[in-house]
């Protein structure tokens, strides 16, 4: 198996948290992992993305070639569209619907969402709204991770293990809230 995943969003939206959980789950499943991420200047409210590759055989490139991503997970809808050149034909897009409007020329959100809906396998998720209903607004990124589970090639128990491991020092309340967000997300796409 081999899964190429692009994780996208705006600096500070928890992109690296999603990546870290999948990384841990993949390593725990005995798979190879490569994950390129963005540090430095772009983290100040700029566009950020992570190329994440998991495979049962050796992975050479740290970067995903154009047209080779199986899944795009985006915490922000405009950012999902920025990386579609990487998406395989009929690849999966899991995107939040809520815009992050820190730029004055942000395009019309309806146009953004209807463009996303044109993709054959786009799943648009009201991630912030769901997280808010669950009582933990910060876990919106984990809602999206949950929705992506069927397409990652890693069992859901391993992803759950990844969350427990990553948040181990944060206490049970935070772990439970994130696991609830994970399965709420999974319900949408399962």
């Amino acid at each position, binding site marked *: 198996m081999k899964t190429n995943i692009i994780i996208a969003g*705006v*600096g500070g939206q928890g992109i690296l948290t999603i*990546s870290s959980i999948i*990384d*841990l789950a993949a*390593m725990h499943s005995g798979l*190879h*992992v*490569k*994950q*390129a*991420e*963005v*540090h*430095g*200047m*772009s*983290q*100040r*409210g*700029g*566009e950020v993305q992570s190329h994440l590759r998991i495979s049962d055989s050796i*992975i*050479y*490139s*740290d*970067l995903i*070639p*154009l*047209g*080779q991503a199986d899944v795009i997970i985006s915490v922000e809808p*405009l*950012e999902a*569209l*920025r990386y*579609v*050149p990487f*998406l*395989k*034909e009929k*690849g999966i897009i899991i995107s939040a619907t809520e815009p992050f409007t*820190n*730029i004055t*020329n*942000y*395009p*019309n959100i309806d*146009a*953004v969402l209807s*463009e996303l809906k044109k*993709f054959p396998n786009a799943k648009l998720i009201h991630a912030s709204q769901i997280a808010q209903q669950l009582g933990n607004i910060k876990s919106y990124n984990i809602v999206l991770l949950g929705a992506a589970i069927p397409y990652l090639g890693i069992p859901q128990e391993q992803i759950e293990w990844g969350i427990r491991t990553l948040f181990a020092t944060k206490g049970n309340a935070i772990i439970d809230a994130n696991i609830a967000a994970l399965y709420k997300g999974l319900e949408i796409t399962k």
Partner: protein
Amino acid sequence: MNQHLLLGAEAIAMAAIDAGISGVYAYPGTPSTEITEFIQHSHIARERNIHSTWSANEKTAYESALGMSYAGKRSLVCMKHVGLNVAADAFMNSAMTGVNGGMVLVVADDPSMHSSQNEQDSRVFGKFAMLPVLEPSTQQEAYDCIHYAYSISEQLQLPIVVRISTRISHSRAIVVSQSIQKQNSLNPDTDKRKWILIPAFARMRYAHLLSLQPKLLELSEKSPFNTVVKGNSKQAVIAFGIAYNYVMEVITAHNLDISVLKISQYPIPHTHVAEFLYTYDSILIAEEGYPVYEELLRGFSGNNKLRGRLDGTLPRTGELNPDHIAQAFGIAIQQEYSIPVFVVNRPPELCKGCSHRDLFEALQIVMKEYSHNHVFSDIGCYTLGALKPFEAINTCVDMGASVTMAKGAADAGMHPAIGLIGDSTFTHSGITGLLDAVNDKSHVTIIISDNATTAMTGGQDSAGTHKLHSICEGIGVEPSHIRTITPISTGLQENIQIIREEIEYKGVSVIIAQRECVQVAIRNKKKNKTS
């Protein structure tokens, strides 16, 4: 088995700890910062009393690492590519002195300039100094090559350069670690001829460095990091460092029958390279960075067997990727979708509530009163003042240049001559320039935007925190013209007035605009809550 999921930078840090270093010296700089931070957060490093606090700049870092090596212990020094320009004097001369305890320089290049002002290739520096250079292609190799580097450093009594780039530094993979080695005990070098580079001794040292070159070549020839993948066609690739990954990605994905020579240790292994040059009809040279070795291998004749960055087969600038390599082999990219035209860029911006914002607002109002309203600035978060909505600065060249360029412009008759610099950049390379201005009584206004941290790289300690006023006073700025302001919206009118007064003062004035970085404030608040 000890498996870890590590960034390339972290793999280097863990390897250095495991190889028994007694200290790391560095100034933060993307993409090298995470090496030192990993060591700062390591319990083992703390137990072993490994030095890991930040240095004032790359030159002080390099010299401290050299001093630790002189004392017989293993040291690590890390910087970004442009940091090596700052440390170049120490670096070049350390090749002449050589080392005692093993010493490794990790220099992180930034092709495509993700967070830098140029994309210079540090392998050129390695060649310039005539030192061995290692260029790992994977995180595991990054780990392994550090152990190897310390071993050959002590064997050759030379500092070893490890060159990485953004992509390997900021990419994670699984790394298997080795057992941890004992630290060296204190054993100062007593050989004065080695360390005192007066001309008579320096000539001997240079002859010695030259005499080691055949040995360096021999190590490259048998290096475990220089390997060959055999194919049966007349096509080949010579792939350097991380470029090897992209080449292998394409070769395996498309079942290409192509031979590959991977080079991760320099000087380049002559035997392997010569064999490739004679055996194959068409050879792609894939280098991350400048076409350093493509140029060398082409020579004057141009060698039309070779393809690479110089003939347009690969782009002349920027970071490589698997798509560039595929195109070099004539493989069409399978891109299905394009970015819709309405997707606009989202450039980085100053944080909400950032002190630089309030400073720029005040400064802009004052600058409107002058016909020459240029602001010489520097490297840090405040460089984002170049972008909308502020567009408030005119220059950003190198660390500390704001102060000295303002001085030169004042000498030329420009008024106002404003240098705008951050606190960490000021202590890195601004102090000496300010001394020049004081000695010349230059008509400059230096604004130090002091957020008490090295913010751009993630909020590391700043060398001048609580010391800026006394530093300025100490080098002779008139105390009445060292003004401290708080850049905050309620203080706008008062700040405008102070900036106006100091611009009009005929001499050196310094305005210290002091307010904590909002990111660091949030982090400290969180830390206090949990502890």
